[in-house]
């Protein structure tokens, strides 16, 4: 398309959507009811196929819709938490029956979702999972334990990977399911972290039931399908963070939306601290009277330099990608590894700045306890979402082309050494 075409298309979308919003949008409507209308009209997820609540819009066209929503303060489809992961995976791999049953209530926010992938016995080695899905006629009986399940305590459904065949090689015996979380065989327990927050859950499945039609893809296709979920997760969920601002507006629908966001975002409250808060270093050093200490200044400068370097590396890579250059290092592993280094350097600097005040936590502490929360949260950043060690493997193998680690997990899964567990 030429630029002229682009702008004609933009005007057309704005005209159609504008007229529709004039007719339908009101801050006084109940949130759920509004979203039913939105989904029915195909404006909830315009990038989705026409057959499934969407309009087959291009990325650029979808941006026009988001922009107009933002301008008019319109609340969009439910997109918080693992909902989007489930939606994208179902769209890509789900049967019509699955799409039929789950996509609409997912968009309206009627159903909340969670992700059941990691297990206590398989962290870095996700494909080593041992949760069992045993066929019993037209259903599967699920036994096993999952962990690090954000929002599982209020989820209606979960996307689940479990092992259906123990004789095949590890990646081939896995299947992908939608599981009903509101059944007796599923128990959700909160999992508290060292920083005191309980952002995750453990999920125990004991003879839990999944019906055959809730399997996504064929048996044994689970690992391949999970890659869709994981790559979407790595890309940052596609969540429209700009929409969070709506939560502060007044009006019935905003209040309901704010509550939805509050619940969904609760587990992520400490995430900024996990990254080390380089933004606070100078102001805290000033406030604590340490800004003129040359040793403190060195540590602050190190942190700020690393943080700015990582920010620029990302934005320049993005610009190169946009310009079609081939000089782009694939994957986010370098950024992820840098984030760990930055956060640790911030920890060092914050400790030095706070002095003996870093002994305190909570309301009694410096900066409303943020420094203590930083010190206790930073250790997570080099673990969650793939440890530093895994990132270094990826960088050295996929980017630098060094040989892979020798493998000890080929052949039938049954014969591979693994951690003792329930399954």
């Amino acid at each position, binding site marked *: 398309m030429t630029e002229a075409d682009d702008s004609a298309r933009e005007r057309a979308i704005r005209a159609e959507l504008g007229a529709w919003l004039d007719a339908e949008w009101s801050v006084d409507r109940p949130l759920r009811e509004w979203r039913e209308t939105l989904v029915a009209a195909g404006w909830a997820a315009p990038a989705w196929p026409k057959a499934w609540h969407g309009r087959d819009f291009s990325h650029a066209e979808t941006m026009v819709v988001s922009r107009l929503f933002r301008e008019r303060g319109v609340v969009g489809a439910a997109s918080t938490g693992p909902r989007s992961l489930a939606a994208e995976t179902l769209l890509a791999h789900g049967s019509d029956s699955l799409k039929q049953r789950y996509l609409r209530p997912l968009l309206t926010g009627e159903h909340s979702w969670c992700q059941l992938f*990691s297990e*206590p*016995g*398989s*962290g*870095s*080695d996700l494909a*080593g999972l041992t949760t069992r899905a045993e066929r019993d006629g037209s259903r599967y009986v699920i036994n096993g334990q999952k*962990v*690090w399940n954000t929002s599982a305590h209020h989820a209606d459904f979960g996307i689940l990977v479990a092992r259906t065949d123990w004789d095949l090689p590890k990646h081939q015996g896995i299947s992908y399911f939608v599981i009903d979380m509101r059944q007796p065989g599923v128990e959700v327990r909160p*999992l*508290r*972290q*060292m920083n*005191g927050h309980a952002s995750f859950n453990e999920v125990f499945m004991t003879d839990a039931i999944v019906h055959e039609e809730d399997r996504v893809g064929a048996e044994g296709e689970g690992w391949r399908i999970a890659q869709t979920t994981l790559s979407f997760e790595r890309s940052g969920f596609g969540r429209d963070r700009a929409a969070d601002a709506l939560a502060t507006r007044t009006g019935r629908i905003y209040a309901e939306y704010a509550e939805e966001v509050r619940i969904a975002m609760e587990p992520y409250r400490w995430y900024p601290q996990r990254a080390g808060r380089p933004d606070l270093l100078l102001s805290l050093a000033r406030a604590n009277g340490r800004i003129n200490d040359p*040793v403190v200044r060195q540590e602050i400068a190190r942190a700020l330099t690393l943080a700015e370097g990582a920010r620029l590396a990302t934005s320049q890579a993005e610009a190169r990608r946009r310009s079609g250059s081939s000089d782009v290092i694939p994957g986010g592993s370098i950024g992820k590894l840098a984030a760990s280094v930055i956060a*640790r350097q911030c920890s060092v600097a914050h*400790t*030095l700045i706070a*002095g*003996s005040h*870093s*002994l*305190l*936590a*909570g*309301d*009694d*502490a410096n900066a409303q*306890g943020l420094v*203590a929360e930083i*010190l*206790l949260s930073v*250790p*997570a950043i*080099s*673990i*969650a979402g793939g*440890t*530093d*060690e895994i990132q*270094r493997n990826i960088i050295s193998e996929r980017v630098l082309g060094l040989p892979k*680690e020798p*493998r*000890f*997990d*080929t052949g039938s899964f049954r014969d*591979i*050494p*693994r*951690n003792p567990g329930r399954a």
Partner: protein
Amino acid sequence: MSETGFAFSAEQNQFRDMVSGFFAARSPMGRVRELIGLGLPLDRDTWQALARELGAQGIHVPERAGGSGFGAVELGIVMEEMGRHLYPGPFLSSAVMTTSALLAAGGDAAEGALVALSSGDRVGALLIDTLDDPALLGTGLSVSDTGRLEGTAPLVPGAANADLWLAIARDQPSGRLGLFQLNDAPACQPLGSLDLTRPLSRVVCAGLSCVRLAHIDTATCERLWDEWNVALAHELVGAAEALLAGTIEYLKVRVQFGRVIGSFQALKHRCADVLMEVELAKALAREAARTIAAGLPARGAAAMAKSQAADAAMHAARAAIQLRGGLGFTWENDTHLWFRRIKSGEMLFGSPAQQREWLVAHLEATA
């Protein structure tokens, strides 16, 4: 600095085994967790058994003052095992800080308090206006000519368990520093503390009646700081060794990708680095204790021991969390309790950077 190394005697090694056995039996991690859950009340039975069976609280106190008559080396052994087992009693505040201050003050007046503390009957706390730098002592607490203590001790370890109170404050008429004993317990405000096994309080003193035990000079204050830092260095070494041992144990059984993760070279090498750092810290801590026990100047030895021990222990703690993956970041796993204790050990009585500055200042002053 000695030319030849020293090794513990058979008696000292036996004493260490007893201390270690005591904590393993009387203060296992389950019990530590239980006490934390209860807000860390003093387990007086264990505290008194520690005094009765091992003489730990008075290990460095002369026998005439109710102690065992040993010194900094044996105190170091106790602290090292305390760090290894994460004992949550108020040992640092009572047996190290308060007791050392009383020993430094000397005289008959101090002796009564020493007897009470060594026997485990009383638990001491020391009010000071800084945990950072001995040069700042006396800038926040003062005693009027009518014997009234005024001012704030912003961060006081062990205050919640104490029933014998001392303070280092400035004697107002003379302007000299002194060690004072309080006649009544002050009001303590417990503070949210990073270290769950060694919480802090804020103590505001508004005209508390007290008596002066002795005047103390700047050199004595520095000497106290050195002794406390050397004790902490031992604790940090013990904590680091416990974490490394636990990490190794985990690496030997945890399987990923069909192999024990302890076979991955990057993980092995990280453990080797931690061991090397801890070994240097241990050697420095022991030499510093020996220097103090010999009554020699210990500024440099203490600074080296504390900075190396804190850095090595923080590395051990970070590795312990990292190499356990998500597990190490959970509340239920004990690793963070050590992480917190190590962080408090790192920052009490001067950060590693501060210790390094003191080291060079000392070397330059004595060059």
